[in-house]
């Protein structure tokens, strides 16, 4: 209706945060760091975990709701001192062999394990993202989980409960990772990140962290992101590095890009059950590949063809334009 911005306005330069996976891990993941790897079954940052193994990081604290295959690999790779998690199983496909050995036998050395429930982990990220000293939740009443995790405490509400009596509630402390790594379908060079399908806890894990690495299937033009700003789950101001790494979530899936590798999940229980076989697997598939592109190539075209997906496009919406 009025006041179009003059065409002469100089475009504001956007920082370009794209880097290689190697450089991103080298820059932001130090020995001893607390690293959150999030993605609930969908968009698991597996390729980033593999690069951490390749670079031989040590004494990491890994935070992850569902400590699945990538966690087992990181532990077997000698990278992990401590695990903070709410589910330590190989999805619905069996066991995490290395993780179980470390917890059940303490061999080759014990693994520190800080255990929560899913919502406990979610609330820890919420507290971290919101810079809160604690976050209340209606879980844990009568559970043995607080007895093995002194981080889970109680607070008395300053308001009367429904029966007029004082009310208590459990709380969890904030989780503030040194770096959070998530995988996404696409981002622009500045780090505006779009995710569809399961969005999980990624945004909160990123905002809770001091640094954030976004691994993406595609780096897209600014115009693609800006055509649908509601799809941006993580804005550029929360992102430090953007890494293009197609198929970097394997064996997890990327909605609209490739499907879950169910056979790999089922196979992992066998591989990880045998320490020698597991070591060989790491040597061949992770330490024996230079980067994720080589891992992808090694899996082979036929393998990837089996994970291909068809099309189901969203209906576009009109954001409108002032006339």
């Amino acid at each position, binding site marked *: 209706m009025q006041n179009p911005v003059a065409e002469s306005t100089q475009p504001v330069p956007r920082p370009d945060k794209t880097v290689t996976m190697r450089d991103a891990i080298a820059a932001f993941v130090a020995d001893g760091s607390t690293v959150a790897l999030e993605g609930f079954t969908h968009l698991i940052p597996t390729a980033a975990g593999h690069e951490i193994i390749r670079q031989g990081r040590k004494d990491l604290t890994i935070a992850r709701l569902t400590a699945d295959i990538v966690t087992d690999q990181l532990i077997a790779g000698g990278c992990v001192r401590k695990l903070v998690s709410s589910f330590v199983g190989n999805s619905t496909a069996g066991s995490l062999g290395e993780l179980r050995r470390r917890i059940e036998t303490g061999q080759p050395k014990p693994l520190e394990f800080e255990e929560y429930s899913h919502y406990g982990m979610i609330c820890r990220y919420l507290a971290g993202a919101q810079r809160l000293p604690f976050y209340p939740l209606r879980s844990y009443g*009568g559970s043995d989980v607080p007895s093995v995790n002194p981080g889970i405490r109680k607070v008395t509400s300053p308001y009367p409960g429904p029966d007029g009596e004082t009310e208590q509630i459990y709380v969890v402390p904030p989780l503030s990772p040194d770096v959070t790594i998530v995988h996404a379908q696409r981002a622009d060079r500045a780090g505006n990140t779009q995710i569809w399908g399961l969005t999980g806890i990624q945004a909160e894990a990123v905002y809770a962290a001091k640094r954030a690495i976004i691994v993406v299937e595609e780096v897209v033009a600014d115009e693609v992101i800006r055509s649908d700003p509601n799809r941006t789950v993580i804005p550029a101001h929360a992102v430090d590095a953007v890494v293009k790494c197609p198929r970097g979530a394997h064996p997890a899936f990327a909605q609209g890009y490739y499907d879950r590798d169910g056979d790999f999940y089922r196979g992992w229980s066998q591989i990880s059950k045998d320490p020698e076989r597991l070591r060989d697997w790491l040597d061949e598939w992770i330490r024996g590949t230079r980067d994720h592109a080589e891992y992808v190539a090694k899996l082979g075209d036929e393998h990837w063809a089996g994970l291909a997906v068809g099309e189901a496009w969203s209906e576009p919406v009109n954001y409108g334009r002032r006339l």
Partner: protein
Amino acid sequence: MNAGSTGSRESTVDVTSSELLAVVASRELVGKNTVFAGIGLPTLAVSLAQQTVAPGIEIVYESGVCGAHPSHLPETIADAVLITDSEAVLPMTALFGYVLQGGRIDVGFLGAAQIDKWGNLNSSVIGDWHAPKVRLPGAGGAVEVMANAREVFVVMRRHDRRSFTSELDFCTSPGPDRALRDGIRPLGSGVTRVITDLGILAREGVGEELRLLATHPGVTVDQVRAATGWDLQIADDLATIEPPTEAELRLLREDVDPDRVYLRRSDPGPRPGRC
């Protein structure tokens, strides 16, 4: 209790244990609107209920999917086929915070390695937590389902003294009695139904133990008592569960899981002497 069937003729042959559990669980969903369920027998039960006793019932998945219309039977609660064509995909903060803790789930389905007579569940460890004999996957969202769903259904494929125990090795997901002793007021009733290959155990709420409510045809009370690690109370009006009807079995086999992914081809079948 809804142990009665909806169909016409009884089918007394060739029923597998998975089919039996799915059918019996589906009948218990009369009048329920929202169910929180994992993949497997619980989803089969809900899918069958949608076509029989509870047409409008909605499954909410832990992954955040609401109103799924999958093109294929999903393999996990986060399967890509659950997302495409679904009505809503919620972030986990909303799913756990607004839907589950917000009190909008009528029935949550849970599994467990151990259950005690108050319906407390262990899915964490066998042995001592600090040096376990077996490390199990852990809580996941089970603590939250127990604390926040109006009631919880447990489906156990095998009713035995290892699982039905007088004392849990570890209490992952406590029922309301334990919660109240800890000074926390839970929203729901905790476990109200345990559906096993021997029968149905039930409790109504705070202060009540699980009682044997009904047995499958041919199962004796002594058989159930022997398979239960505590002194099991028996309902005064103990009933016999009506076996799956042909209509129920047809829907389950032809519509819900035609490739027998969760019904299992290699299903050992129910215990001898029953069905």
